């Protein structure tokens, strides 16, 4: 069972200084976190948008997840961190049933979206993926489509005809902080953009469907620092409206963008807590070793 977060503690909510994390004092001595102004979300109990219950996943005979139970809070960013191969990508791919797209992949346990188990036999994964959007590691705009058509691709693939497509395109691109850069070149190919722009186009493409949850699988690992900063800034804006799960191998990034962080190691959930708590006062030795850079 993962520990529940401590909403009452009112720790500093701002992103932690990554240097402070890596050079923090030895274990046992808890660093004192300055209490700043109480931030939103510290009073009301957080709502679970999604919840994995005993989630296990396999690739053929290899078990990648050994029973993960993890809440995903509404209107917040949840980061999944852990070393390569720990199952963090597999976890998010189970949330929108993309895991099963790979031949030989299997899942047990459940993932609740609201009250519905997405692995219920009556759930159509195609409908689910409309509600649980996904952004991939490598930007993958559709190369044969224009920027505009890329944004509308999700609606069209679902057979939806928006009454005002131009408004849909503008809203999604504004939400993805890309509108000002591309508003004059909407008919150009999506592949003509820079890597960071392509990734924001992919975010806009996912947002155009107005998903309830947005899964991001290492969305910045193929981007340069400037593009990464833009995506992180964007996450700060999106967190109020969407429920976001971000997989990252970059602990500083998790510390900067996430409200909650889960540490996965070798297919197990080691620790889950509010980001500030997890990075300053981890309960588990393995978490501490990982975030202080002793392995991984």
């Amino acid at each position, binding site marked *: 069972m993962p520990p529940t977060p401590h909403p009452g503690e009112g720790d500093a909510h701002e992103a932690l200084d990554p240097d402070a994390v890596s050079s923090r004092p030895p274990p046992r001595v808890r660093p004192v976190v300055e209490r700043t102004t109480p931030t939103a979300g510290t009073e009301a109990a957080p709502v679970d948008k999604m919840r994995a219950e005993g989630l296990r996943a396999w690739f053929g005979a290899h078990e990648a997840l050994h029973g993960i139970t993890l809440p995903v809070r509404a209107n917040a960013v949840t980061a999944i961190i852990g070393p390569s191969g720990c199952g963090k990508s597999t976890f998010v791919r189970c949330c*929108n049933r*993309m895991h099963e*797209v790979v031949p030989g992949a299997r899942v047990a346990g459940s993932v609740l979206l609201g009250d519905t188990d997405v692995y219920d036999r009556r759930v159509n994964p*195609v*409908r*689910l*993926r*409309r509600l649980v*959007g*996904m952004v*991939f590691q*490598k930007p*993958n*705009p*559709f*190369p*044969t*489509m224009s920027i505009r058509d890329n944004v509308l*691709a*999700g609606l*069209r*693939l*679902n057979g939806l005809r928006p009454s005002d497509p131009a408004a849909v395109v503008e809203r999604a691109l504004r939400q993805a902080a890309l509108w000002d850069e591309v508003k004059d070149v909407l008919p150009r190919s999506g592949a003509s953009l820079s890597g960071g722009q392509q990734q924001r186009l*992919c975010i806009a*493409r*996912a947002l155009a*469907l107005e998903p309830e949850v947005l899964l991001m699988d290492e969305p910045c690992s193929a981007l340069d620092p400037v593009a990464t900063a833009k995506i992180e800034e964007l996450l700060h804006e999106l967190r109020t409206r969407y429920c976001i799960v971000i997989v990252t191998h970059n602990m500083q990034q998790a510390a900067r963008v996430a409200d909650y962080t889960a540490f996965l190691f070798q297919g197990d959930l080691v620790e889950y807590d509010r980001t500030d708590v997890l990075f300053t006062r981890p309960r588990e030795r393995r978490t501490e070793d990982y975030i202080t850079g002793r392995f991984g």
Partner: protein
Amino acid sequence: MALDPLSDVRAAALASTHAPDLRAPRSLRERAVGALLAGAAAVSVLTTIGIVVVLVREAASFFAEISPARFLLDGEWTPLFADKHFGIWPLVAGTLLTTGIAIAVALPLGLLAAIYLSELASDRVRRWVKPALELLAGVPTVVYGYLALSFITPGLQHVVPGLAGFNALGAGIAMGVMILPLIASLSEDALYAVPAALREGAYALGATKLGAVFRVVVPAAASGIGAAAILGVARAVGETMIVAIAAGQQPRLTLDPRVPVETMTAYIAQVSLGDTPHGTLEYRTIFAVGLALFLLTLALNVLSHRLRRRLKGAAA
């Protein structure tokens, strides 16, 4: 204290009498093998050059007698008759008509087969169907010719009124079946080369399998599929046996698929197998026709090559 790690090796090699001499020139054997391989590559290049030289020389002596204007502006092709006309268009029309029918049959079927194999078929089915498809490509074209003459055309005569015994339709359909494996196989390669990330991107947006295939994968593979179609066209343009057997040998400026026509290739076969004496004007017509055919297939190959290069650029 050697900074260059190699220098240690060299020193050791020079110190030891058993060590190989690192400064030895490339062995004779290696150079001989290299020359052999270069020679093998040269054969095909030299053959092509030889063909072009012969074609151009013979065609030039044809055009010395018959002006290119007569070749390009006359609407009849009757060089073997008393009333001689040398207009290439009836042969071009026959070629385009049979090729058009062939591609109309082969492209939709081949593309659907490729989509099935690449996107829908299980590994087991794919392991059986692909070799079977490639077997179809190994059937001698003379078999397809008689298939058209004695099976397709009689069958079509029940459905198509006024279909002659020799006609472009039956020959074109048989040619379509012949190039089907080529188009299916090359299209399958093009679909398979579409990055998995694009399929996943479509699925993650709530696309169904078919939605992802038709809206994302097939458009992304369009240039490869186009290249496959063009190679299929080139194959059909150059095909001789099927049209010589089943399309009739009557040059006719028509696009009516029910009547006998003659293609450029069938004309060349007719003259070179017949009793037309070598060195005559009639005999040299086949080089003029051959040159026109060569230019046509060359253009198609160049186009296909460009499309495939674009496909590689897109997949990278």
